[in-house]
């Protein structure tokens, strides 16, 4: 009986302690924001502008990426084999080439089945009989390690015995893709730089606020406040800056 009461009171103590922490955190954070004055606005508007630039950077890189995707993968080479040559027989040879990252063999039966399905024909056997056999050939989907190796690889594949034809995304498209890739990496770099700047600015602002309240912090340290207890309100203040900055960026620029 005694134990149960003990446990309950213990539990209540823990809940109580949690609310005390919450109470303290809210009060200190609000007090800090109220006292911060113009420094709050400096921080919030900086975050707003930085988020705006950040957003532009991100959007540009997304758009470029979308454009890139329209051209499909430039790394893939389709190898069509001569009639009667199985994909499995050529696959090990191709896999040994240094430029090759991955090889996927597609048997003519599988390709045929897919085609039939895509054409919405129900009876596979019936159609096959009508055409006097499967008209397709085996195919290898070869993935190159990098796009500039693709032409060389294609030439090499074509010279292999048993290969009927080789197809890959043509060079002009590839050049555009390369340009896009370059632009993407540039915009990624800008985005990264802006992120670093945003972090530095918020950090500096918080530091300023800490400096302005260093007497309080000194007293807190001397009376035995733990460092997390001291710095959590500042952290929350920073989160508030970020949040309000993000909201006002949305309001100002999303229109």
């Amino acid at each position, binding site marked *: 009986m005694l134990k149960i009461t003990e446990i309950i009171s213990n539990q209540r103590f823990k809940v109580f302690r949690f609310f005390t*922490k919450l109470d303290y955190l809210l*009060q200190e954070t609000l007090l800090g924001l109220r006292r911060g004055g113009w420094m709050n606005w400096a921080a919030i508007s900086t975050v707003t502008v930085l988020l705006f630039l950040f957003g532009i950077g991100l959007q540009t890189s997304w758009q470029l990426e979308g454009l890139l995707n329209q051209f499909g993968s430039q790394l893939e080479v389709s190898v069509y084999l001569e009639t009667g040559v199985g994909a499995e027989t050529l696959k090990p040879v191709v896999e040994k080439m240094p430029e090759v990252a991955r090889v996927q063999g597609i048997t003519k039966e599988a390709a045929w089945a897919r085609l039939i399905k895509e054409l919405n024909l129900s009876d596979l056997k019936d159609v096959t009989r009508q055409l006097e056999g499967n008209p397709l050939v085996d195919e290898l989907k070869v993935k190159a390690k990098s796009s500039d190796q693709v032409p060389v690889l294609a030439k090499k594949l074509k010279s292999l015995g048993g290969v009927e034809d080789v197809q890959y995304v043509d060079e002009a498209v590839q050049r555009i893709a390369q340009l896009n890739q370059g632009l993407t990496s540039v915009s990624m770099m800008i985005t990264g730089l802006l992120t670093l700047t945003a972090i530095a600015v918020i950090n500096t602002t918080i530091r300023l606020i800490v400096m302005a309240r260093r007497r*309080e912090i000194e007293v807190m340290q001397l009376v035995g406040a733990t460092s997390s207890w001291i710095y959590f309100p500042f952290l929350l203040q920073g989160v508030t800056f970020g949040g309000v900055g993000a909201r006002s960026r949305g309001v100002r620029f999303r229109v």
Partner: protein
Amino acid sequence: MTQVLEDRSTRRAPQDAPQTIIQLQQVSKVYPNGSQALIDINLEVKRGDFLFITGPSGSGKSTLLKLLYGEERPSQGEIVVDRDAPDRLRGDRLSHLRRRIGIVFQDYKLLPRRTVTENISFVLWAQGYTRKEIARRLQPALKMVGLTHKSDCFPEELSGGEQQRVSIARAIVGTPPILLADEPTGNLDPDNSWQVIKILKKLNQIGITVIVTTHDESLIRLSNHPVVQIRDGRMSSVRY
């Protein structure tokens, strides 16, 4: 206050608690710039003692107190404060030791834009006390230093003596077993100084161990507590 303090002292100091609350053994302190602040200090303070540390300015009195609350670390020697070694504690454990030590400074260190009540309850907030507990402790602390009627004043509206009394209330509101006062009367006239000493004596009578540094000889002559002197970093006993 007495009631609140007695709660704590029965909890903090059971029968088998060691009589010695502060002990320094062959403690030396050399600052990084090479100045020798303390040389081979040995000191033992018993629970419930009242000790004066005297000596000219710059003799190492403040350094000694800083070693006790872990602001500075000794270059050599052993320090024990309430069964802990402040020089070996870091982070939260040092914070928890500091909760058992009240500190009063010559320059009060009150927060200028907070009222007397806020300055005192701030300490309890910082230590994680609940609102209810803060309200319970505030009045006795204010009464102890005789400032109940000034509870809503800001520090600049108070005299130096009153400000120092606020800082004493702040130091004891968490009911620490040890109170360190670094030149508490340094900025005060004789009347106010004596009032501060009287409050410290009263706190000592309810069981708090008090250590006061001062260079004011007249204060020492007016009371009958033990006195040690620090001169050029060396300690000598003046009166037991």
